[in-house]
C-alpha cells in the first residue's frame, strides 16, 4: 500500500500535465496548483468542518483559477512558461497572505488531532487514471481534437472548431488533477504546511518526459520515483547516501531524454 500511496500525487499531477502536453503546451504551474488546492482544502475544511464541501469548493476554486490562467495565456498570446511561473509565484504569495489574515500564521495549519480523512478513493482514482486517459485520448472525440490541437491549430480552424477551447480545457483538467494530488497530500498529513508538495509538481513534469508522454510510460515513471523516495527514507540505516538514491530517477530521465532525441534524429535523416 505504501508504494501506491507514494505514487498517487505523482500520478494525478503528471497525468494531468499530460493533457496540456497533448494540447501542445506545458503547464509549469502544477506545483502551484498542488499547493494551492491543499491549502484551500484544509482552510475550507477547518472553517466549515465538512469533508465534502472542502473537496468540492477547493476544486471549484481551482477550476476558476486555472480557467483565468489559461484564458489569459491563450487570449493574450502570452508565453505559457512565463505565465505558468507567474502563477506559481502568485499562488505562494496569495497563500501566505490569506493564511496570515485568517489564522494569523504563515506556517502550518493543523486540523484537530481526532480528524480522520478518508483518502483511499483518491488512490483508486489515481491508479485507473492512466488507462482512463488512454481511452479518452484514443477513443473519444475530445481526445482526437485535443491531440490535433497540439499538432496543428489551423487544422481545427479550417474545420470551424474553436481551437482555444481544447487548450483551455486541458489546463483546467491538469489543474483539477494536480489539485486532487495536493488534496491527497493534505489529507495524509491532516494539515497544511507551506511547501507541502515539496517539488512533486516539478517532478511530475520530469515524469511526463521520462514516460515519453504516454500514460503507461508515466505510470512506470511514477513507480520509479516513488520507489526511490521510499528507499531514500530507509537509506539512513544503510551506507548509501540518500541523495544518490534520490538523484537516480533524474539521471534516468536525462538518459531517457538523450536516447529519445537520438532516435528522433535518426528518423529525420532517413
Amino acid at each position, binding site marked *: 500500500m505504501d508504494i501506491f500511496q507514494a505514487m498517487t500525487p505523482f500520478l494525478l499531477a503528471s497525468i494531468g500535465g499530460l493533457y496540456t502536453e497533448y494540447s501542445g503546451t506545458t503547464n509549469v504551474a502544477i506545483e502551484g496548483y498542488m499547493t494551492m488546492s491543499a491549502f484551500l482544502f484544509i482552510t475550507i475544511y477547518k472553517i466549515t468542518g465538512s469533508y465534502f464541501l472542502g473537496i468540492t469548493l477547493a476544486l471549484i476554486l481551482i477550476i476558476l483559477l486555472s480557467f483565468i490562467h489559461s484564458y489569459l495565456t491563450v487570449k493574450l498570446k502570452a508565453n505559457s512558461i512565463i505565465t505558468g511561473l507567474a502563477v506559481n509565484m502568485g499562488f505562494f504569495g496569495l497563500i501566505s497572505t490569506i493564511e496570515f489574515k485568517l489564522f494569523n500564521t504563515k506556517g502550518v495549519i493543523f486540523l484537530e488531532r481526532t480528524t480522520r480523512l478518508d483518502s483511499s478513493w483518491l488512490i483508486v482514482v489515481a491508479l485507473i487514471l492512466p488507462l482512463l486517459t488512454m481511452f479518452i485520448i484514443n*477513443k*473519444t*472525440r*475530445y481526445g*482526437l*481534437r485535443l*491531440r*490535433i490541437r497540439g*499538432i*496543428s491549430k*489551423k*487544422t*481545427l*480552424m*479550417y*474545420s*470551424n*472548431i474553436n481551437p482555444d477551447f481544447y487548450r483551455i480545457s486541458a489546463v483546467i483538467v491538469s489543474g483539477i488533477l494536480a489539485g486532487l494530488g495536493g488534496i491527497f497530500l493534505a489529507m495524509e498529513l491532516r494539515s497544511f504546511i507551506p511547501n507541502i508538495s515539496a517539488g512533486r509538481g516539478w517532478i511530475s513534469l520530469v515524469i511526463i518526459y521520462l514516460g515519453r508522454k504516454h500514460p503507461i510510460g508515466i505510470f512506470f515513471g511514477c513507480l520509479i520515483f516513488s520507489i526511490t523516495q521510499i528507499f531514500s527514507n530507509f537509506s539512513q540505516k544503510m551506507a548509501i547516501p540518500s541523495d544518490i538514491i534520490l538523484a537516480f530517477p533524474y539521471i534516468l530521465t536525462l538518459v531517457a531524454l538523450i536516447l529519445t532525441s537520438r532516435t528522433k534524429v535518426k528518423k529525420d535523416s532517413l
Partner: protein
Amino acid sequence: MNIIEMNHICKYFHVNNTQALDNMRLSVKQGEIHAIVGENGAGKSTLMKILHNIEKCDSGEITISGNTGMVSQHFRLIDELSILENIIIGVEPCKMGFLIDNKQSKESIKRILDKYGFHLDINEKVGNLSIGQKQLVEIIKIIFNNSDILIFDEPTSALSDNEAHKLRETLLSLKKNGKTIIIISHKIKDIESISDRFTIMRKGQYIETVETKNVNLDEISRHMSGSDIVKTIINTTNSVGKVLYSFNTKQLKTSIHENEIIGITGYGDCGLHTLENDLEEISLKNENIGYVPSDRLGKGVELNSLLKETMIAKKRFNFSKIGLLQTKRINDYCNGLIRKFNIKGYINSITGTLSGGNLQKTVLARVLDTDPEILVLCSPTWGIDLESSNNIYNQIKLLKDRNRGIILLSSDIDEILKLSNRIFVMYKGNIIKELKNDGSASQEIIGKFSSGIIND
C-alpha cells in the same frame, strides 16, 4: 439562384498596413464552378477565409445558403494520424455523444469513395501519401463534412500535370453531384477547362464577373493584371560558352556551360526532390553556385522575421561593424533590392505577410544579388501569378545573358520548354533521357518520357 452573396466586404490588416479587401463583392450561383482570379496579393485567399468564417471581415454582408468546406493551399492534414482520423475531424460520428464511432465513419467514407471512384486505404498514415493523394484526402474530408460549397485555394499549383488533370476531372464530377465549387487559380488551364464563370479581383477590389465561354485566354490574363503582359521570350537554341562546372552526383552527370539553361523535369516522385537535395549540398560548399529552393516557406525565408532581415540573411557579416549591425546601410541596401526586383512589401514588414509571389521574388533577389556563376533554381514559379512569373523569367533571362549557367528543376513542362537549352527527363529516380530544346521537344514527347516510355 445565388447560393453565395457577399457585398461591401472590407478588411484591413494592421500587421502590414494594407487594405486587403476594399468594398469587395461576389455572387456565386448554385451548382456552378466559379473561379476567382487575380494577382498574388489581390486578396483572393482573404476573401475565401472570410467566406469560410476563419477570418472576420471589418464590414460587409454575407449570405450563404449551405455549409462551406475549404481546401487551403497549404494542406491542413496531420501526418501522424490515419486518413480516417484526418477525414472525420470536426464532424466525428459519435456514439453517446462522445465515443468515436469508427465503424460508421468507415462506412460513410466507403460510400464517398465508391460514389466518386476514388481509391485510398483509409487506415494508412497521411504522412506516407503523395501530394496528389493528400489533396484527395482533403477533398473527401470536405465532402464528408457535408459541405455544399467547396472552396479550393490554388489546388493545382503543387500538382504535376497528370495529377492536375485528374483533379479537374474530380471537380467536374463533384459539380455533377450538385456541389457548388469556388476555385482560386493562376493557371489559365484550370479556368478555361472547368469554370463556368469567373470573378476578377485586383488590389482587393471587385473588377468584374465574366462567363468563361465568352472570353479567350489572352483576355483572361489581361483582365487579371489590368495590362497586357509583355511575354519574356528566351532563346533556347543559342550557342553556349565554356564549361563552368561539372556535376557528378548520383543522378546528374553533366557539365553546365556559360549562357546555358539546363531544365530537369519529371512527374510526381520521380527523384527531382533527391536531386534538389544533392544540388543544395553542392551549392552550400561552392560559393559560385546560388540556390533557390522549391520549399520557399521552409528553406527560403523565415516567416516571423522582418523582410530586411530575410534579405540580408546570407550576408549579414557584410553589414556589421565590431559585431553590430549597421541599420542605415541595411535599410538602404534592402530598399534598393525592393525597387530593383519590384517586390511589393516594406523593409520592416514581417516576412510572412508577403504574398507567395513576393516571397519568391525576395528569395530570388537575395540570391541574384550575390551574382552567382551558376544558379540552381527549383520550381521558381509555382503558386505565382502570370505577371510575377514573367518578371522572374525576365530576371532569369538577364542572368543568362551575363554568361551565367542555370539549372532549372521544375515539374511544369511549359516552363521547362520555355527556358531550357537542354532538357533532362527523370523517371523513377534516374535521368532517362536528354533532349535538345530546338523545336523537336514538345509537351507530348516529354510527357511520354516522364511516364517511362523511351522506345517508341
